[in-house]
């Protein structure tokens, strides 16, 4: 069964090769597997791809960690006060409804064209999901367990530490899974609008020159980064939620 997983990719690669090999005009628009491979080797040997990929990964990861951690903390502490959570709700909804593209120029003006603005965009893309998911998690604690803790005379802080935080971990991890893509998108949009390095910068520059091979190398690298980060979150999930799969 697992042997079949690469099959669609191989079929697509062969179809792409056949489609572009016969006609150089098609190669101009769609590039070709051979060209993309050559460009990949070239960009790797020059160090440009590693530098740009590292920049984007750093921006996305920093924003992801910052956004998910602070969002989870805010969302979980809302458990202490439903009133505060209710007051915060419209603000969170408002922030969630604004497309990150719309506020990106403003963030770049505020934080400059360096990595800081991209980290901020990745942060803003991820923080809302983390707040909403972790608050939902904190409100979904098994009532039976809360009842028991109350009977046993646990303080609110003890209930929070012993029950609410660990039981919300599933929700926080779900937020992490969603946030990988959002953090990369935030960093990428920042680079796309204004930057001096990163995969967004590489793709914008290459597409301006109709260098489809470089664009595709950038896209594939982004996919690889996303898959790598997803794998790390998967490992983290398996470890944190080992009691579920025991």
């Amino acid at each position, binding site marked *: 069964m697992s042997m079949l997983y690469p099959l669609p990719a191989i079929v697509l690669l062969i179809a792409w090769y056949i489609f572009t090999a016969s006609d150089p005009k098609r190669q101009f628009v769609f590039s070709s597997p051979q060209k993309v491979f050559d460009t990949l080797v070239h960009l790797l040997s020059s160090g440009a791809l590693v530098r740009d990929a590292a920049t984007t990964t750093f921006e996305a990861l920093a924003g992801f960690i910052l956004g998910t951690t602070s969002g989870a903390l805010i969302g979980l502490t809302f458990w202490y006060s439903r009133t505060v959570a209710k007051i915060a709700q419209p603000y969170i909804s408002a922030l969630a409804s604004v497309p990150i593209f719309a506020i990106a120029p403003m963030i770049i003006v505020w934080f400059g064209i360096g990595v800081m603005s991209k980290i901020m965009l990745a942060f803003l893309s991820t923080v809302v999901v983390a707040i909403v998911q972790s608050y939902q998690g904190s409100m979904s604690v098994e009532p039976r367990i809360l009842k028991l803790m109350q*009977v046993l*005379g646990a303080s609110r802080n003890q209930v929070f530490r012993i029950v609410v935080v660990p039981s919300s*971990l599933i929700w926080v991890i779900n937020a992490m899974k969603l946030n990988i893509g959002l953090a990369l998108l935030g960093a990428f949009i920042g680079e796309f609008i204004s930057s001096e390095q990163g995969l967004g910068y590489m793709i914008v520059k290459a597409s301006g020159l109709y260098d489809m091979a470089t664009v595709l190398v950038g896209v594939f690298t982004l996919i690889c980064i996303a898959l790598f980060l997803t794998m790390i979150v998967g490992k983290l999930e398996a470890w944190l939620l080992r009691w579920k799969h025991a």
Partner: protein
Amino acid sequence: MATTLGSKLENKTILSAAKVSFTYDPQPGDKSAVEWTFRDLSLQVREAEIVCIVGASGCGKTTLLNVIAGLLKPQSGSITIASAENRGRAIGYIFQQDALLPWRTVRANLALAEELRGGVFKRGSKERLARYMDTFNLKEQILDQFPAQLSGGMRQRVSIIQSLMFDPQLLLLDEPFSALDFYTKLRLESEFCRLVKEQRKAAILVTHDLDEAVAMANRVYIMDLNGNLSHEFEIDLQQNDGSVEAARGTPQFAQYYSAIWSELKSVIAN
């Protein structure tokens, strides 16, 4: 119907509920219009005694347990629970489904008492744990397992031990054995009865299973649809080994059962 068991008078009263009234009505201002879950309810439970409450669904049995546990505040009346050596609110509450923390190992679940009470029971807690594990036929190997790795019966045993680690004088049980298979249920019922007698605990058991009520309890109450403990039955099927299986085999068992059942039927019908 109510009589007093003379032989048990020397036993200390653990729970004394006097004229307790409770309503879910948020503003019970106009007393005549209030729909009381129960009103002026009184109940006493002594040490080494299991009191069982049976009644139709929704009559207020679980609400009564919640009021006794302090989860709900009664509008009037008083509830006094004797606690050993001033150990605070000494109550254990066991539900139909276990309330173990699924992300914690059995060992960490059983250490909850120490954790919540800042090590008050540290001395001797290991010995107590070993004793309870032995009483409830649990092997030490399960201590490092997660609740999801245990059977329903084992989880419920761990749940009972978790409550016992707080050294409660009063145990509240809300249909704790109803989700178990028949054999596990019998064993656990016997183990629990033995524990209550040996450790001089008091227990209130809410159940829909009349068989269980008669086999385990010293007293059975029927709660009617107005929340009154309308009928009281003294049960005397004392088995020295606490075996509910042996209790079920006695000739008196069927008599108690049919007496309670006929009253319960008329209460539900009314």
